[in-house]
């Protein structure tokens, strides 16, 4: 059977336009992570558009594709696939399905995976930076596995010496 992914087309990002109903809000930390994701891993998924180039899924990836560094990766071209939605409602449903059909990460599994990265030699700062996490999140996930903060976030400097006044 023919699938949308059979034909990936690289288009100038300017050719695409956002839909006017997308309910998905992405806060700055996740937007930043999306940027890191494309910069580190490259384009791994196409943007889904309908025949008049309205975005069905991938609005936020399209948004960050305008950022200088990402733009430079592909000279402003982005991968797209086309879906033929029969009416406006079907298109909206397609958007919602793309947005919502994903899981959440279990606490324990996240804790294990972060701990294993630490064991593999990744520094706490690196996890914070490359996963767009707060230090708080990394510290809590680690203490869940029994790993003390000081094992991972090493104080760079000695503390101040003192004498009685």
């Amino acid at each position: 059977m023919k699938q949308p992914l059979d034909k990936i087309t690289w288009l100038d990002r300017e050719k695409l336009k956002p839909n006017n109903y997308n309910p998905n809000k992405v806060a700055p930390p996740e937007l930043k992570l999306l940027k890191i994701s494309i910069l580190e891993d490259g384009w791994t998924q196409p943007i889904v558009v309908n025949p008049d180039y309205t975005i069905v899924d991938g609005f936020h990836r399209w948004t960050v594709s305008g950022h200088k560094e990402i733009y430079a990766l592909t000279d402003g071209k982005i991968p797209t696939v086309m879906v033929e939605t029969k009416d406006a409602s079907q298109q909206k449903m397609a958007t919602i399905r793309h947005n919502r059909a994903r899981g959440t990460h279990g606490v324990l599994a996240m804790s294990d995976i972060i701990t294993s990265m630490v064991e593999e030699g990744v520094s706490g700062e690196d996890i914070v930076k490359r996963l767009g996490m707060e230090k708080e999140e990394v510290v809590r996930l680690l203490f869940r596995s029994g790993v003390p903060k000081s094992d991972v976030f090493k104080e760079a400097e000695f503390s101040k010496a003192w004498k009685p006044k």
Partner: protein
Amino acid sequence: MARARQKEYIEANVYEEALDRIRYLYDTFDNIVVNFSAGKDSTAVLNLALIVSKEKNRELTVNFFDEEAIHPPTIEYAHRVCVNPLIKFNWYCLEFKHRNACSNEEPFWYCWDKEKEDVWVREMPDNCITSHPKFTKGMSFQEFSSLLPEKADGLTAILTGVRTQESFRRLKAVSTKKNDNYIARESHVAHCHPIYDWSSEDVWLAVHKFKWDYNKTYDIFNQTKLYNKFLGQRVCPPFGEEPLRGLWIYAECFPEMWVKMLGRVKGVATAWRYANTELYGVGKKVKPDNLTYREWSAVILESYDTVDVNKIKKNLNSLIKRHYDKTNDELPDEEVHPLTGTSWSFICKISIKGDFKGRTGPALEGNAITAQKKLGINSFDEAVRIYGSEEYKNKRFKNK
């Protein structure tokens, strides 16, 4: 603290009775002030006080302590109350200290912090009070509001919307005295709780029946999974130990403010993701397999900065001391001790939540009672006879 008395139901309904209490306050005190949070409970107190102030042709002062990161409809509601000509409305935007339970690195924050104006979640409203000779940065609004009344102006009653349905601590606070039980007087200032016996349903009934204006944040709560869950619908600063479990409401319903909140204090993104999980001390007891709870508590405490951790340790030490004051038994690792209600696993739970106020006392009692029931022990005295140290038994039973 004295023991709480039993409830005795009376003829009057809560609405009539609350009005009578406020009439009594107007007759007894020179000044009446409502501490208004814009929440539903203070809405009830405000409207009741307005009725009585009109009856008696007396003044009504309302103090609103604006805590910066508040739901947008709360602000709109405060603006509507503010212009009521029958009220002397004081809108305070001061640097109150609040708990930030999202973060172990930054466990407190100051609303309207003058040093952080660039990251405030909203602009300060016009005509608000931004400094006061009696205010110093870091006070709580409760402390400050007690300092506000001048002795020269006579006796002042500060009315609040405290209701006993909300917690045992509050129930105890209004159940120890037989007369004037809802009035706690210190010098020329009294804190008064005229709607202490109201339920959430009573508050909403009054709002609808008398068509009182109210904070439309509640309508938004009712459009979410908090529909009709009155006790989960809280209008208060968002980063505290309990409130952080409702951060998702800001993210879902007020995305513009949410973006600002993410940058306001540390840990918000983390708490939003994990507030209702074990990473914030919610749910079943779980620990790493390779550690005991005792060892794990040290790992958790290490995530706090030095100054803050000392405050938490002080509370934990007193828990441990209270345990050994009563028994010679080793503090258990997992199951709580049937006499003292403490265990290292309980200490881990408190460490994760970061109990800075030492509010764990009532929980201990509950823990102990549950443990006693499990073991078929029917009274505290029986538990003392089985588990108590000789010294404690002597102390406990010497007068009996």
